[in-house]
């Protein structure tokens, strides 16, 4: 029946497009490129997992066929052999199939981007095509969207590259995937997407002004959209993926197109359906929702009794309250099938069972007094008596022994045995694969084939099962969410995905608190930036020493850091000085003696002098550097004696000029402490001057009563450097001749 429907629509489409005689094509990506279904997907690729006792990829193919697709490219990577086998056996590969399915497998696909780049490389698509994942369940008639898409492309000369299909559903709808929650800003009239953002974890949604400047006066911001993960793409999409190697997902692509809209001139539009159904099974939460939606007939005409896969023995009867029974189902005395129950063929159910909102596969046996609520049982599952299962998934071949209770969101993977007399806590995942083995296999997760899985199974058998976890007769290992967070944070979230909690940040938040947050936020990052920059500089210098990096490269690196953290040149210098001077403390602890300190610091100064010279150029730079030095030694007051050596070295290395040192010395004593410092160092500073000015033939130096530095030059003249920085050559002043008051050496 479905193929007939497909033909009809096809007829419509072809009559409307006179010139475009080419068949409609689709790209079906039968891989999720993530591990949200681990460990279930360790044994079976996600596209083949049964939903309503039919493999998910069959729904996707049926959807494509019924919208008039005549040629589908199925791209497989993980367990591609299994998918291939499945498809070859299915009705899609029969000669009568209206939809020609080509299977393309490669182990090298790592993302949607890779697939589309391959589409471009192999030049597979000639016209607009539909892009879907192998886990999309939908009954949306996209021909309307397709028509709009083609019309736009005809009118606007290929500006629109993609039309995304959304379904309208208000927030909180349980088929909305929290992880896929998006907010879209669009132009009301042209249906053009102006802004596209995932909202997960955001409190405030920000829309840049430039999106409102396209001449239109009506925009819509929509949060009532469920992403169906169905997109109508122009052939350019594949080319764009080739051009931009950083596009990995569709999200990357959409964001990229929207951001570069001005440059590339490409636009994305959206199509919103009100009555169709479309959802992607992206995690177990979604699996649960979609499976129930299916049983509740939301995906009509794709219903369990329709047997659209056209396989023998798959048929079932539909009776009221959405109860479906396959062939040869036996139901014990007193058992109730309340509502929304699908039972596969050859399944027997014992007496006094209570079943609601559940899907049970083929060849299952269920004992007496069993309570099933939102249970998803696949094929060949054995459930003993007195078992209770709530919102859980039980995979093929699993055995649940007497009096076991599965609380919410449990997963029993393939061939696991549980019980008897056990209650699994909420969110327990049991698999025959040992969680640690999975890490060992990490490298070749994408390259695996059946053989290898079998091999690893043998390996795990050797490890003992924990009876406390899986029961005395149990077989299987508990998977904990924390086990696989080595990959990354996102995957570590439980299989079930985010729980739909009704707006966690909701109403309790007050604007006042937000405002205060804003205020505090605006102050703190500045400090953080500077600190972070300091750490980075330290790291850079350290690495420079270890790896013997040329100073020029260090300068380059510091410069780039400067821009990254938005640091002024002055701050760079101060931080650099501070980092270098603290370096010995950093490396050898603060317990250094002054001698050790200078011993380790002075060679460093020599090494890094080019770095300093790069930053210290103007007179003001010198003073800034000096004030940083001063600041540091005011803090490290036990090492003040080292200061003069540092200054001397810097002077000798021509980092600092003499005039700057003198000027610094004579000015800027802002408080008692720094004045004290200057006084203590004054004598030694004099030495610098002596060393520094051989040309002027300094014979000696002394300090005036007024704090000025007096250099005794030849010919009985002196150079007076007053505290205001004025230098004056004159004969010794009468006051300063007094030895006692002037501290003449």
């Amino acid at each position: 029946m479905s193929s007939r429907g497909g033909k009809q629509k096809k007829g419509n489409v072809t009559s409307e497009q006179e010139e475009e005689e080419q068949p409609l094509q689709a790209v079906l990506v039968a891989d999720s490129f993530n591990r949200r279904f681990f460990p279930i997907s360790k044994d079976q690729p996600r596209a083949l997992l049964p939903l309503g006792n039919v493999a998910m990829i069959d729904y996707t193919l049926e959807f494509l066929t019924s919208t008039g697709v005549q040629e589908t490219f199925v791209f497989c990577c993980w367990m591609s052999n299994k998918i291939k086998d499945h498809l070859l056996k299915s009705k899609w590969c029969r000669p009568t199939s209206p939809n020609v399915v080509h299977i393309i497998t490669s182990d090298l696909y790592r993302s949607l981007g890779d697939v589309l780049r391959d589409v471009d490389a192999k030049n597979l698509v000639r016209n607009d095509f539909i892009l879907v994942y192998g886990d999309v369940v939908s009954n949306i008639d996209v021909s309307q969207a397709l028509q709009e898409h083609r019309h736009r492309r005809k009118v606007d000369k290929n500006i629109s590259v993609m039309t995304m299909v959304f379904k309208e559903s208000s927030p909180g709808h349980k088929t909305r995937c929290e992880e896929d929650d998006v907010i879209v800003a669009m132009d009301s009239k042209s249906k053009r997407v102006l802004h596209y953002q995932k909202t997960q974890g955001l409190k405030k949604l920000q829309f840049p002004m430039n999106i409102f400047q396209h001449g239109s006066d009506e925009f819509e911001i929509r949060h009532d959209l469920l992403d169906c993960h169905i997109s109508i793409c122009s052939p350019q999409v594949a080319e764009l993926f080739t051009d931009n190697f950083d596009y990995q997902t569709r999200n990357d692509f959409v964001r990229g197109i929207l951001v570069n809209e001005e440059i590339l001139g490409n636009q994305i539009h959206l199509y919103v359906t009100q009555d169709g159904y479309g959802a992607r099974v992206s995690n177990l939460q979604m699996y649960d929702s979609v499976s129930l939606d299916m049983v509740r007939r939301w995906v009509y005409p794709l219903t369990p009794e329709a047997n659209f896969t056209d396989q023998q023995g798959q048929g079932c009867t539909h009776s009221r309250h959405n109860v479906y029974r396959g062939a040869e189902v036996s139901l014990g005395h007193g058992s109730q099938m309340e509502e929304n129950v699908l039972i596969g063929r050859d399944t027997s159910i014992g007496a006094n069972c209570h079943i609601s909102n559940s899907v049970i596969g083929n060849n299952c046996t269920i004992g007496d007094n069993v309570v099933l609520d939102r249970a998803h049982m696949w094929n060949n599952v054995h459930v003993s008596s007195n078992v209770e299962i709530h919102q859980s998934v039980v995979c093929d071949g699993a055995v649940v022994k007497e009096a076991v209770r599965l609380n919410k969101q449990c997963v029993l993977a393939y061939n696991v045995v549980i019980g008897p007399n056990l209650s699994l806590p909420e969110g327990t995942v049991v698999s025959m694969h040992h969680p640690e083995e999975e890490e060992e296999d990490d490298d070749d997760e994408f390259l695996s084939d059946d053989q290898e899985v079998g091999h690893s199974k043998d390996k795990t058998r050797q490890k003992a099962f924990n009876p406390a976890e899986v029961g005395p007769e149990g077989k299987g290992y508990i998977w904990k969410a924390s086990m696989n967070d080595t990959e990354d944070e996102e995957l570590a979230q439980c299989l079930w995905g985010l729980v739909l909690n009704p707006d966690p940040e909701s109403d309790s938040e007050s604007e006042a608190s937000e405002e205060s947050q804003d205020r505090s936020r605006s102050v703190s990052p500045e400090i953080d930036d500077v600190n972070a920059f300091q750490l980075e500089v330290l790291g850079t210098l350290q690495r420079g020493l270890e790896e013997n990096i040329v100073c020029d490269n260090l300068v380059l690196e510091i410069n780039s850091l400067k821009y990254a953290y938005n640091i002024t040149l002055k701050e760079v210098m101060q931080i650099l000085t501070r980092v270098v001077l603290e370096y010995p403390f950093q490396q050898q602890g603060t317990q250094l003696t002054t001698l050790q300190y200078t011993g380790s610091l002075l060679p460093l100064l020599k090494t890094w002098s080019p770095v300093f010279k790069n930053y210290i150029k103007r007179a003001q730079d010198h003073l800034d550097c000096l004030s940083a030095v001063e600041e540091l030694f005011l803090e490290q007051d036990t090492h003040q004696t080292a200061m003069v050596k540092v200054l001397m070295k810097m002077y000798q290395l021509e980092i600092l000029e003499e005039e700057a040192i003198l000027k610094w010395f004579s000015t800027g004593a802002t408080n008692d402490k720094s004045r004290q410092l200057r006084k203590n160092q004054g004598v030694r500073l004099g030495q610098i001057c002596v060393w520094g000015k051989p040309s002027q033939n300094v014979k000696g130096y002394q300090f005036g009563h007024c704090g000025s530095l007096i250099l005794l030059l030849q010919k009985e003249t002196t150079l007076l450097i007053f505290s205001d920085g004025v230098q004056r050559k004159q004969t010794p002043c009468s006051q300063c001749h007094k030895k006692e008051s002037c501290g003449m050496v």
Partner: protein
Amino acid sequence: LQMELQAVLMAAGGGSRMMDLTYNTPKPLLPVGNKPLIWYPLNLLERVGFEEVIVITTKEVQKMISTDPKVKLDVKMKLDLVCIQEDADMGTADALRHIQQKVKTDVLVVSCDLITDAALHEVVDLFRAHNATLSMLMSKAHEFTETVPGQKGKKKTGEQRDFVGVDGTGKRLLFMANEADLDEGVVIRKSIMRKHPRMHIKTGLVDAHLYCLKKSVVDFLADNKSISSIRGELVPYLVRKQFSKSTNSPKVIDETHQNLKKNDKIQISSRDEELLHLTQERSCWNDHRGDMSDAYHGGRLRCYVHIMDEGICYRVNTLAAYIEANRLAPKLFDEPAVHPSAVVSERCLIGADSIIGASCQISDKTSIKRSTIGVSTTVREKVKVTNSIIMHGVTIEEGCNIQGSVICSNAVIGRGADIKYCLVGSHSTAREHNSKIAPEKRLTECHRAEVNITYHYKSITYNNCHKVSK
């Protein structure tokens, strides 16, 4: 018997955006279709059955309304004129605070420059149906088609746009901001989007400055003296506060509610309040779909807007709007185009889209098309008036040709003048030649220098964008 709503008419604005017109005539008294501007909002209120209106205005306007014979308001409503000081620089919210003592119920605030044929009940019904704190009227912005004296070409729309966000039904007001304040882009909290998942952002709207406000808002204004303008401060504040519960201000409003209930049990609005609350609790009605939370998500402060899709809605606050309003005003009421007391020669041509005011004298061989001729205006022989607004007491000598211009009150146009797209200023003391445009002088775009006008006080002549001063 208590009224449901008290009407408040704001008529104290100076008309700062059309100073050329309001220099001698205060804005509320500018003639539009030979009626003072203030007549239009008064008529609007009278039509829907108001019997009393509080008019907030200046001393000058009050004097003119009561003494000037030309200002015939012909309204049957009782006008309660409240004067505020002109130089006090009071905003609309200040004015509302000023009359707080007179406010006994919810108020309907109207601006004096509103000309509309809007069905007022739409706004009030929103206010009633949702027990709203604020409901207001907006309209799609109109493009002004007429050429405006003193403006070359079409005015560029360089003005800052208002961003108005409404929910899926187009009624609930969710967001309001001016482009100038949106440096960081439009920022909307996610919790708002969860409650109202579909938000329409509209930019091409004009605020009609017509608001229904709860009495508690007026009381709130009395407590918060920092708010001075309804449009600029109060409305954005209320819109914002819809979604924040824990802040003080709604509590303030709530508290005042409570106080009122305690103090004055006879208040109809307060008694309703309790009943309404009860109905809402017991009712299965809900304003939204999707989640199962209470109607309005438990929020107590609600703002609504009625957006007119069609019909006339002008705010006469610029010269362009003034001209447009004059063109459209005759369509708003059924009155003979030519006043019975006007003396119109039989041998002249008067288009159907023109209005001739009372005691006018129109002489032979005159042609008047798409124009408004004010009260006591004399038009002599062989004069051609097209697309123009002639105010009261103007004398147009023989052979003049006036096109697309505005001639203010008591001006005298000399013989044979040719005036195109000009604004001729008004004057009231010099009786003989107020703004006299000398005979045989053409006032067109290229003859700017030859204009010979006797200026008294401030008479302004624009010659297609050029201000002529001598």
